């Protein structure tokens, strides 16, 4: 589904990604771990198409198409979704209006009519129930004054509504309490299928107990320095990153 080869990228004149290779197939879950500042969020921003990040070398193919040629919205229309590490507050736009606008924009790009209001409403009800989100919450301004955990839950609600092919969850677990973590993980699992894939960025093994990865990668200084199975995450939890840095 997503094939990244030898990806180098820079931001504000500083090179952050130094040759990433990653191959994500439909139906798979990949976890990316790594110390603070190693480039995990940078990789997600580059995949999602943030204008500040510049690809200087390498390729990113999503179902055979080079992503660098596409605008952020076109990437979203192709089925890429990024759950932000720090979701942005948008005062004056309610969660509901935002998600309706987003869904209909994607439909329009595919040549479809607006989603009928009753179906939209039903879907909103269904997905907010899945993530145990109070309906009052949906009429509030997007992320404005939301707690850290509420923001993350809201990201996954958006993911559930948009039904992406490839979801990148950037530290979705940070800020969530234990119960919320289960709700959110359960939500993500419900959305999984053989046709879509998930990249989970996290610092903690705990999330991976709920969303079980097929592969675990360690990112350090802008490169994937080690890959393994879910056991690698357990090992990292025990030993930290020093041994990997030494090996690299």
């Amino acid at each position, binding site marked *: 589904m997503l094939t990244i080869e030898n990806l180098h990228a820079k931001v504000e004149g500083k090179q952050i990604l130094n040759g990433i290779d990653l191959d994500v197939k439909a139906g798979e879950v990949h976890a990316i771990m790594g110390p603070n500042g190693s480039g995990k969020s940078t990789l997600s921003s580059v995949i999602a198409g943030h204008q500040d990040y510049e690809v200087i070398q390498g390729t990113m193919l999503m179902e055979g198409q080079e992503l660098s040629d596409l605008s952020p919205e076109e990437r979203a229309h192709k089925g890429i*979704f990024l759950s932000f590490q720090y979701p942005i507050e948008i005062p004056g736009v309610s969660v509901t209006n935002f998600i309706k606008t987003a869904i209909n924009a994607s439909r329009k790009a595919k040549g479809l009519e607006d989603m009928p209001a009753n179906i939209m409403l039903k879907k909103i009800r269904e997905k907010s129930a899945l993530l145990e989100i109070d309906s009052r919450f949906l009429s509030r301004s997007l992320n404005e004054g939301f707690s850290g955990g509420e923001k993350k839950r809201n990201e996954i609600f958006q993911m559930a509504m948009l039904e992406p092919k490839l979801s990148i969850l950037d530290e979705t677990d940070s800020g969530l309490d234990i119960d919320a973590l289960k709700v959110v993980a359960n939500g993500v699992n419900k959305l999984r299928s053989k046709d879509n894939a998930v990249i989970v960025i996290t610092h903690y093994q705990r999330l991976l107990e709920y969303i079980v990865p097929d592969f675990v990668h360690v990112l350090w200084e802008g490169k994937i320095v080690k890959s393994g199975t879910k056991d690698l995450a357990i090992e990292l939890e025990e030993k930290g990153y020093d041994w990997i840095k030494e090996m690299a």
Partner: protein
Amino acid sequence: MEFKEKLLASHLALEEKVDLNDAVHQTRLESLKTFEQKGFPSPKDEAWKYTSLNAMVRQDYALFPKAETSIELKKVKKYFLYEIDTYKVVFMDGVYSPFLSDTTHDGLDVCLISAALSKAKYRNLINTYFNKITNKEDSLTALNTSYTLEGAYVYIPKSVVAEKPIEIIHFSTGKEKALWLQPRNLIVVDNNAQVQIVERHQSLKKHSVVTNSVTEIYAHQDALVDYYKIQNDLSTASLIDNTYISQEKNSNVSVHTFSLGGKLTRNNLNFYLKGERCHSTLKGVTLLEDRQHVDHYTLVDHASPHCESHQDYKGVFSEGSKGVFNGKIHVDRLAQKTNAFQQSNNILLDDKATVNTKPQLEIFADDVKCSHGCTVGQLDEDALFYLRSRGIPKKEAKALMTYAFANNVLESVELPVLKKRINKLIAEKLGVNLGFDL
């Protein structure tokens, strides 16, 4: 003949239309002298630095159009808050339109200033209020005063709550190629009384029209006044709005100005806080394109202690449009415990639009809280990326964010139909798809 000369010379013609023995004729004559001495403001005046009337007054205008009252309701219905029942004072080319109006004398007065000026029973009120809080040095106000002929007169007696909003609407029909209008409104809200007023100036056809309007509003003790100005006129219409508000103890007055269209608009909005514990709210949404120009020139004069004033102006400018915000807060030596806040936030959607902002604080008391902030910027890039990453195209994302930015001024609008109407106008102007509920 220059237009100024014409105004001076034509005053004789006005004298044929008014009662020379009415309560204000002397005031008219004195004001004409003021205008004669001062003339139109020039860009050399500090207060008119960014807004030039030179081109406007180089033209000639008709001053006394023929009455034109026959118009089909369905042609103008959309300019009214037709969804609800309201009092209406409506003028066509400056002439009262009984057909479109819905006035009253039942428990409160919603009628014409021409009637109030000429009838004996109003003489006391006119003597007490007419032209009492205007700035006597202001030449445009003086010009309006000298030509006082018609406008709305509203009187809400003690403890009366006007149960319907009042609409004051001035249409210009385009029958005259170029027209100069000078409506004069007087609004008195007595102790503990309440009223909501919506004012609108609207051309029905593209033609050169300038409105130089003066409104005096008196809010007595504990009075509550919500005043809304809808400025969404055609690109050939200009407006100079001079509004003067006097507040007594504990009164609460808000003025919302929605500047969404027109050629040149200047809002001189003056609040005089004379009693203690007044609340004043000045809010504005300005949304301009093409070569439109809006200048907000506000004054909040804190003359008494324990008062609170809030100014919040949002502006969005594109395509060579021009915005000006000049906000003056004056706190008198005696006005301790004043809270005065002022915000002017502006977004430039492209590099052809410009905004000039200037806060002026004159504070002579020591125990006060004052703040002001002016920002001019672009839309937040990270927020745009967030919206786009969800599949919303750049243009729509920008429109949605601009809409959200401007819209939050509407939170304090107490009239739901109006709020919805303005919401919709803003969304339409920005090209935001209204596929969602507001």
